[in-house]
Structures are given as structure tokens and as C-alpha cells.
């Protein structure tokens, strides 16, 4: 059940209606049933995986809670880690590891007979296993009391608004909210609905139309030239950002309708000036998860320089692998890690350079240069993220600027056909392309006006007439300009 489906449009109001009609102590059962139904609408059998993960972590948590010494709790943490990571390995990484080993053995002409595991990747497995792992680790560390109510704990693992693509919530934040009695709140309902509306706008008006164009290029890398690669990467940035942040907005909005506040996952990442800053603003729930449970346990930055750089690199390498089981993602993660290492090594040099040319960080030139730098690095990295295999990625990078000078010459000579030809065959009609471009401009205007602010908070400050007018404009964009006939699954569902 996709958030941008008619099914969800019926499901959500029905669950909300029942939720507020039920006595508070029964509401967890409704939410749990709704969450399981939501998950089962993808593949019925996979609910067993969530249940298994829930049972293991619930029992390990209880056991760890009963033991006072960290040393005594450790075996139960290991059981939880092995169960969750084992599940993840079996369903997500086994085939990748198996194929890599097969390729390696083939190099030495050694027979390798282990066959592939033909199974569909369970939706959201990387998200809910990480969420439940954070619970076990926090209980082990003594920061979280074990949850004794199995139903509430099961709901923590499977709460439907954030089940399949996050935000990856911490038990310390989500569990108390699920235990709490929520009264119907006008403010929560309206702000939740506004977030859903904004998320839908990003998803169906921007991400899905961008997706049509991006797929046309990336699915036939050898059939296009440099200018189309650059265009595809430009629109892919909008696609991924609007798809994932749109999903997060809908998730946060849906949760808010039940009185539950989920964490902010994006803070205008493309306004960053370095990749280090970018990763503090992009997929914050995952980045902070890696920071808390991998980077800091490795020693973080409070170690000798070489070890610090190693910690950064390894964290991003594993983050790449988290995203997908393929060499493309390993390279994607390694590339990000390498860029961050370079940023750390050149930090002082860069500061001296900007100061020598008398440009302060508050200067527009500094900001624009930084944003351009982030866009370029992001683009290079995401060639690996989006192409089907390494061959396509390398081909694309090698031919990234093929035909671009000729294209520019045609533009400068005033060739009236050049734009028409550039976009022809990329799957968008003129009307759809214009709708998309207007929507992107609208998005940027709203984001610029609300830098560092929640879009709903900004709306709250406006008089009702203006607020409603804004809602109608966004609604009109969605219903008349949305890519409903091209509806695509959310990109991060595959992880």
C-alpha cells in the first residue's frame, strides 16, 4: 500500500476515525493491527519476519533489563544483533555475497556450487531491523528500560507511518509516545494533514515526473549523450530528495494525526556547503544511527588523525552497503567516505584560502560555491546509486560531457530546436515538463522562504484566507499536475 495510492487515502482516515473512537487503552491494538495489515498488503508472508524480530528483541530486552551488569547483558545483545543482522544478511546480502564469491572463485577456476536464494527483498527490512537494533543497544547500555508490554513493543517495531522507509526512530523517543494517551487535537490534525499535503506534492508532482525522465536516460545509458546525462542527474537530485523527503513528510504527517511526533529527517540538504554538512541534513535518522552505533563506538573523532579518517571512511562504506547489496552501493559509500576524508584533511587549507581572498562564510559567493560543490559531488556519487551496474556507471562517467560543447554552441547560436530535441523521447510531454519545472520553482521558493523552519510552522503564521489559498494551490498542483498514470514506488522502499 503506497502512501500515494487511493487505498491509503481510504485506509488512513478509517484508522484515525477508529483510533479516536476507541478507549485509549485499546488503541495500541488497533494501531498494531493496522500496521500489520499495512505491511501484509505488500507480501503477506513477510509479516513473520517482523514478528520474529519483535519476539527476539522483546525477550532479549526483558532479559537484559533483569541483569544489572553490562557484562551479563552482552550475550543477549549479541543474540539480538545476530538475529537481526542475520535476517538482513539472509534476505538482502546473501545473494550479493554469494555472487561475489562465485566471481572470485571463477577467477581461479574453482567450482563454486552454492546457488542463489530466490526470494523477494522484504520491504523496509533495513529500516525496521535498524530500529529494533537501536532498542536492544539502548537497553544494553542502560539508557532504555525494557518495554514490558509486548503489544506496545510490537507497535514500536511496526508502526505503519514509518515502517517501510523510516525515519528510523529511537526507542527512547517513540516508545514513550506510543504508551501515552493522546487526545484529539485540532492543531495536530491540521498540521499533520498539511505535512501530508506537502509530502504528496513533492512525491507526485516532482519526484514521479522527474522519475520518468531519469528512468528514460538511466535505463538506456548507451543511447544518450552528455547533455542528457547532466539533465538526468539534475532531475535525479530532485527525484530522490522529493521522493524520500516527501515520503518522510507523509510519514510524519500521518503519525502526527495519532499524536505521535516522528523525527525530522531532512533539513534542506542541498543548501549545504560541504558534504560533511550535507550528511547532517540528509536522512538524518540513518546518519545519526550510524554515528551513535558505529562511528562513536569506533572511536569517533577523539582518536589520532589516521584512526579518525578510518572511522569516517568505514562508517560511510557500511552506510553504502546498507543502501543496497551491490558493488555500485559499495563504491557509492566509499566515494562519500573518501570525499569526507578529503574535506577533513583540507579543512584548514580551505579556511585559509577563503580568508585570503576575503570571503566570509556568510558571503553569497561562498554559499553558492558550496552548494555547487555539493551538487557536483552528489551527482558523481549518484551515478553509482542509480545506474543498473558498474559498467553503465563507468560508461556514463566517461561520456559525461560528450556533445555538451556542441549543444552549448547550438544554444548560443539560437537554434530554436535544441531544447525540443533535448527533451524529446524522455517520456515527458511539454505540459508535463512545464508542470514539473513550475513545481520545482515553487518548491525552491517555499524552501528558501522557510530556511531552517518547518513549512507548516510558516503557514501557521498566515491568516486563514492565505493558508487555505495555499492549500488549494498545492491541492490543485497534486490533482491536476500529479503523475498518477506514472506513479512509482518510493525509492527508499527497496532498501
Amino acid at each position: 500500500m503506497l502512501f500515494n495510492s487511493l487505498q491509503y487515502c481510504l485506509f488512513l482516515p478509517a484508522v484515525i476515525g477508529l483510533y479516536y473512537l476507541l478507549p485509549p487503552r485499546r488503541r495500541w491494538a488497533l494501531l498494531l493491527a493496522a500496521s500489520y495489515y499495512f505491511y501484509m498488503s505488500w507480501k503477506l508472508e513477510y509479516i513473520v519476519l517482523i514478528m520474529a524480530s519483535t519476539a527476539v528483541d522483546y525477550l532479549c530486552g526483558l532479559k537484559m533489563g533483569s541483569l544489572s551488569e553490562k557484562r551479563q547483558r552482552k550475550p543477549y545483545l549479541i543474540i539480538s544483533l545476530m538475529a537481526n543482522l542475520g535476517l538482513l544478511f539472509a534476505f538482502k546480502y546473501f545473494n550479493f555475497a554469494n555472487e561475489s564469491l562465485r566471481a572470485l572463485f571463477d577467477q581461479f577456476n574453482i567450482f563454486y556450487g552454492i546457488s542463489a536464494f530466490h526470494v523477494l527483498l522484504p520491504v523496509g527490512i533495513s529500516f525496521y531491523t535498524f530500529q529494533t537494533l537501536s532498542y536492544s543497544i539502548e537497553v544494553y547500555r542502560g539508557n532504555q528500560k525494557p518495554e514490558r508490554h509486548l503489544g506496545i513493543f510490537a507497535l514500536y517495531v511496526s508502526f505503519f507511518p514509518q515502517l517501510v522507509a523510516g525515519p528510523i526512530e529511537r526507542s527512547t523517543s517513540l516508545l514513550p509516545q506510543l504508551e501515552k494517551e493522546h487526545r484529539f487535537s485540532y492543531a495536530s490534525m491540521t498540521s499533520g494533514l498539511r505535512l501530508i499535503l506537502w509530502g504528496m506534492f513533492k512525491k507526485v508532482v516532482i519526484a514521479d515526473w522527474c522519475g520518468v525522465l531519469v528512468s528514460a536516460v538511466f535505463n538506456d545509458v548507451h543511447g544518450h549523450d552528455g547533455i542528457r546525462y547532466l539533465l538526468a542527474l539534475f532531475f535525479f537530485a530532485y527525484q530522490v530528495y522529493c521522493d524520500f523527503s516527501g515520503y518522510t513528510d507523509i510519514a510524519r504527517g500521518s503519525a502526527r494525526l495519532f499524536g505521535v511526533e516522528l523525527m525530522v529527517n531532512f533539513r534542506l540538504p542541498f543548501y549545504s556547503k560541504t558534504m560533511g554538512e550535507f550528511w547532517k541534513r540528509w536522512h538524518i535518522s540513518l546518519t545519526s544511527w550510524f554515528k551513535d552505533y558505529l562511528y562513536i563506538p569506533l572511536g569517533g573523532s577523539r582518536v589520532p588523525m589516521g584512526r579518525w579518517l578510518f572511522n569516517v571512511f568505514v562508517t560511510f562504506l557500511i552506510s553504502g552497503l546498507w543502501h543496497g547489496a551491490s558493488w555500485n552501493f559499495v563504491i557509492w559509500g566509499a566515494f562519500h567516505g573518501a570525499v569526507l576524508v578529503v574535506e577533513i584533511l583540507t579543512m584548514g587549507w580551505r579556511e585559509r584560502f577563503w580568508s585570503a581572498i576575503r570571503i566570509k562564510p556568510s558571503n553569497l559567493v561562498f554559499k553558492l560555491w558550496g552548494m555547487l560543490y555539493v551538487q557536483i559531488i552528489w551527482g558523481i556519487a549518484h551515478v553509482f546509486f542509480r545506474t543498473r551496474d558498474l559498467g553503465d556507471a563507468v560508461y556514463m562517467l566517461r561520456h559525461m560531457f560528450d556533445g555538451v560543447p556542441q549543444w552549448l554552441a547550438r544554444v548560443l547560436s539560437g537554434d530554436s530546436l535544441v531544447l525540443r530535441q533535448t527533451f524529446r523521447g524522455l517520456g515527458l510531454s511539454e505540459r508535463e515538463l512545464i508542470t514539473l519545472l513550475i513545481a520545482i520553482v515553487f518548491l525552491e521558493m517555499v524552501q528558501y522562504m522557510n530556511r531552517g523552519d518547518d513549512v507548516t510552522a510558516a503557514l501557521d503564521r498566515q491568516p486563514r484566507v492565505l493558508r487555505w489559498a495555499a492549500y488549494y494551490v498545492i491541492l490543485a498542483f497534486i490533482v491536476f499536475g500529479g503523475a498518477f498514470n506514472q506513479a512509482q514506488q518510493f525509492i527508499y522502499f527497496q532498501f
Partner: protein
Amino acid sequence: MADAKTFLRRLALFSVPAVVCLVVMIMIDPFNFFGVSHVVPDGLKSEVSQKINYAMWKMLAYRQDPVPNLLLGDSRVADLDEQYVEEISGVPWTNFGYGGGSLREAIQTFWFASEQVELERVCFGVNLHTYNANNNKDRVSEVEAALRNPLLYCVNANVVTAAGKLITAMIMGEPEPIGRPPMTREEFWEFQLEQVTRVYFEGYRYPTEYHRDLTEVAEYCLGHGIELSFVIMPNHVELQAKVGEHGLEEAAVQFRQDFIHWGPVYDFAFPNTMTGDQANYRDPYHFDEDFMQLIVRTVWGTERDFVRILEPEVAAAAAAGEDHAVQ
């Protein structure tokens, strides 16, 4: 509780414009999707709506009255007169030729029609410029989406535009006239020949997807006893020459060789007295009424003067520029 009442009251108020719009769309129903309201006369709908989205008009009408014989393609196929084809072939046909249409739309329409009725005969009108990965316009997906979900029909941009024009026409008493390009015949000829052709031929890409999709169509037709044929529509010789000017000779050979694997190919696009005479054309792409009748009499009748019926070995020779007619 007060909060809930306020919320529901305001939500209802907020929804009023949406509900009003929905009711208006159901009442106007520009493409006769619901078929419950007769506020707008059918004649006016036919005049206005099919000019806005012929695919939607035709597909919705087809759903009501499916015919097992299909003509699929672009504006040149649209120019084939259904009545005349019926007169010559002896069976009724539905013409799904869409102005500016793509092979993608034709293939999608084929599958749409195959879900409505057991097809008997299918004829695709094709050319090199439509057998091109860069020519993949798609107006059929939105119709299919609208057919699956009435809400999408009501908010479809073409439906809303048609509704607006129908309301205007009812108020003004007559539909808004469709403008003609502000060019003389010669200027328009030149524009089509130079500008439009550049759009199609520059950056031509071999259509791997069309090859796969048409193979699937051909296999389906074979498996279901459907008579499948292709017509390479007769471009004017000046347009035929553009293939060479754009260095697409090999693509033209491949184009013909691909199609002969899927069914009989009636090739009209070669130099002869018909394709060499501007008087037989409205522009380099579009033939006139007499030529249309000749095509129909050739494909569904017995005339053979200006066609090459392609076999594998003939396709290569034809693409190489040999201009003899072959029976």
C-alpha cells in the same frame, strides 16, 4: 470533543469546492465516461473533446462498442477513412490513428483493445521516424489510468480543459475555432520538411523497447490467430531523401528488416510517380484523399502498382534505394 467538531466542520467547508468541481465534471462528462448526464449535447462533445484528446475519445467510445479490426498509428493512419476501409475490406474497422502519435501509443492501444474484444485483424501504420526511441509520446497511459479510476478521469488535464471549452461553447453558443498555422502551403511544407524532420531524425535512437514490444505483439497475434500487418506510410520523396541526409541509411535497413519478421509489410515509402508528386500531398508527411484511397485499395484490395510487399531479401534492397515496385 469540541476540537473534533471544529475540525470536521472546517474540513467539510474546505471540501466544498472540490465536491462542486466533482459534480460539475460528472455533469459535463466531456468524454462520456460516466454516461449519466446529458447536459451537454453529444454532437458538441464530439466536436470539442476529440480535438483535445482523440485517444481518450476513441478509447472510451471503443469500450462501449468494440470492433475486432484495428488500424493503429499516427496522423497518416488517422487519415485512412474507416468507411472506405470497410467498403474495400468488407469488415468494419476502428481507426486508432492519433495525430502526432507514437508507436508506444499504438502498442498500448493494441493491448487495451485486446482486453475489450477478441481481435481478428490488426494493421500498424509505421515509418522510420515513428520507429525511433526518441519518439515515445504517451497519451494512452493517462487514459488507461482514468479508465481504472473515475477520480483520475475527473482531474485529468484534458478532461478539465474539454469541460472548460464545453462550458464556454454552451455559453457562447458555438465552440472555439481551432487555429491554423499562420503559414502558406509552401512555408508549411518547408517547415515540416526541415524543422519537424530534424526533430525526428537528429539524435535518432534505435528503439530496443519497440522491438521487444512488437515482438510480443506479433507472438500474441500468432498465438491468437490475429492477422497482423504493417504499412510503411508513403512519405513524399523529399522526406525520403532526408533519411540519407541524416545518415540513417543503416537505420532504415534495420527498420524494414525488423518489421518483416512480424508480418507482411506494405511499403509505400519509395520513390515513384505518386510519392514524387507534391500534388498528392498536403505536406511531406501527409497524403491526400486520392492517395489514401489508393493505399486502402492496395492493402485491402488488389491494386499493386505503388507498393512493395516486403520479404526478408527485398527489405535490404528497398532500403538501399532500389525504386522498383515488387509484388
